[in-house]
């Protein structure tokens, strides 16, 4: 069934979009990533103009993240306090990121920077996560005697403004989470994504949160970041296509519910390996695009004054 998109000004197959939304929704519910880093390239592939794809996918992420979070809230795996602290940092970071983005755009080559950012961050995050989870699994095979070393007290624990994060079982200063939130906010504003794929590993490895809590908490803060960007795109660029968004999010919300159920059956290490492999696959694909000579060297863009 073909549906004409009013803002993208093109006709697409409705079932294709429902399917894409569904796949990204499943991943979102499983891993706590918004799925923007997957959905945007997929939409480009379908032929949606880049500006509309970037502007619209935020709306789909709001829906699928909310659907996922509600499932996590029922299982009490959302650390609202931690989410709020990360969000505060994140909003500060994204405001700063938008500012950097504007400067870069005036210098040109912003597309290249975004692509390089993707390749570098997906590569680093994916590799680190894969190595760590493989090690964790090997440790688990060695038997219960070889427990991972207990969390040591280091300089992080000596920082002021300590707060109890009961759900995460942490008693640490709010400064590291705010910094993590800010960093992710800056990157997500530049790269045009919710930042889940950076946030999730940062929460696990930098903040030491338990994997089960990380997914719900990450989704919780992604809702707000994605809602904020959707509003920005709708008012500043008018590139949010509601019909496209509705098709994607119908698939997305259903997928997210299924994803959370799959995620709750997997073990934490398996979940992290699967996320690492997916992140590496997307990063590898983008790296190949940069390295292999494209079949069409030319591209057309509507000139905007």
């Amino acid at each position, binding site marked *: 069934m073909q549906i004409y998109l009013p803002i993208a000004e093109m006709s697409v197959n409705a079932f294709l979009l429902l399917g894409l939304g569904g796949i990204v929704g499943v991943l979102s519910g499983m891993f706590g990533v918004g799925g923007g880093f997957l959905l945007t390239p997929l939409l480009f592939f379908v032929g949606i103009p880049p500006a509309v794809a970037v502007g619209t996918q935020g709306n789909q992420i709001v829906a699928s993240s909310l659907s996922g979070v509600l499932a996590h809230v029922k299982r009490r795996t959302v650390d609202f306090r931690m989410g709020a602290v990360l969000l505060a940092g994140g909003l500060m970071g994204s405001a700063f990121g938008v500012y950097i983005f504007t400067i870069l755009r005036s210098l040109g080559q912003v*597309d290249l920077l975004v692509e390089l950012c993707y390749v570098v961050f997906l590569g680093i995050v994916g590799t680190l996560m894969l190595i760590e989870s493989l090690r964790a699994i090997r440790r688990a095979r060695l038997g219960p005697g070889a427990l991972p070393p207990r969390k040591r007290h280091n300089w992080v624990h000596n920082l002021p403004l300590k707060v109890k994060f009961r759900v995460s079982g942490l008693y640490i200063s709010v400064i590291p989470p705010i910094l993590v939130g800010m960093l992710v906010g800056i990157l997500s504003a530049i790269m045009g994504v919710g930042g889940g794929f950076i946030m999730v590993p940062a929460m696990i490895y930098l903040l030491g949160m338990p994997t089960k809590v990380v997914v719900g908490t990450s989704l919780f803060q992604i809702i707000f970041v994605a809602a904020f960007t959707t509003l920005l795109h709708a008012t500043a660029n008018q590139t*949010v296509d509601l019909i496209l968004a509705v098709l994607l999010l119908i698939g997305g919300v259903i997928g*997210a519910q299924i994803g959370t159920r799959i995620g709750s059956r997997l073990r934490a290490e398996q979940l992290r390996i699967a996320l690492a492999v997916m992140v590496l696959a997307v990063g590898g694909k983008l790296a190949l695009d940069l390295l292999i000579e494209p079949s069409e060297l*030319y*591209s057309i863009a509507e000139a905007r004054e």
Partner: protein
Amino acid sequence: MIRLLCLLLLLPGLAAAEEVVLGLSRDEVSISTTFDGDEILIFGAIKREEPAPAGNPLEVVVTVAGPSVPVTVRRKARVAGIWVNTDAVEVDLAPSFYAVATTGPFDEVLSAVEDLRHRVSIPRAIRSVGAPAFIPDSESFTDALIRIRTEAGLYRRDEGAVDLSEETLFQASVRLPANLVEGQYATRIFLTRGGRVVDVYVTQIAVNKVGLERWLFDLSKSHALIYGLLSLVIAVAAGWGASAAFQALRR
């Protein structure tokens, strides 16, 4: 006698001996939610005050052009091992859609001079004033524009697609693709003899979004904030709705 006729045809400004009388299957295309391309039948007759002149046969050229906008064509090149956009050429005006249909081989139907004057062929329909001096091969950018849009079905040249019977009745059907842009589509019909244009007829086909498409498009432009909030409300409702539905299913 023949010489006199030739002279008459050569002289512009004289009342055309042969004129187009046109009909369109419709002069309006509505883009609704389920729009999936459309086909427009362009048909007409040739009116004459006197018998058809002998000599070169009559030929018909039909063009349909979508709204023209400036576009930027970028080219990638290898820099430090990776492929990046390096050169860019601004094409001043390029139609979003362009179809040319003729009764015969294009070069025989229309001479190069007439093509230049009336901007009939695809390369002529694109207006490119000049590229930056440091790009020597600016034609390859317009060639690329034509190639990419032809592959996308947006630019089409259909030789022999116009049916002409008895040098009097003609018809052509122009297929409009699904990724159609709103606007006025200029439609021109040329009558030619021996490569020269005998008569031109110009009309418009209006392509408009209707219904939900129209409403959403207008809202996104005139009340951007309300539109943005509306999309968030839909997202939140869908997210919550799916969660509630799955909850109900489990019970």
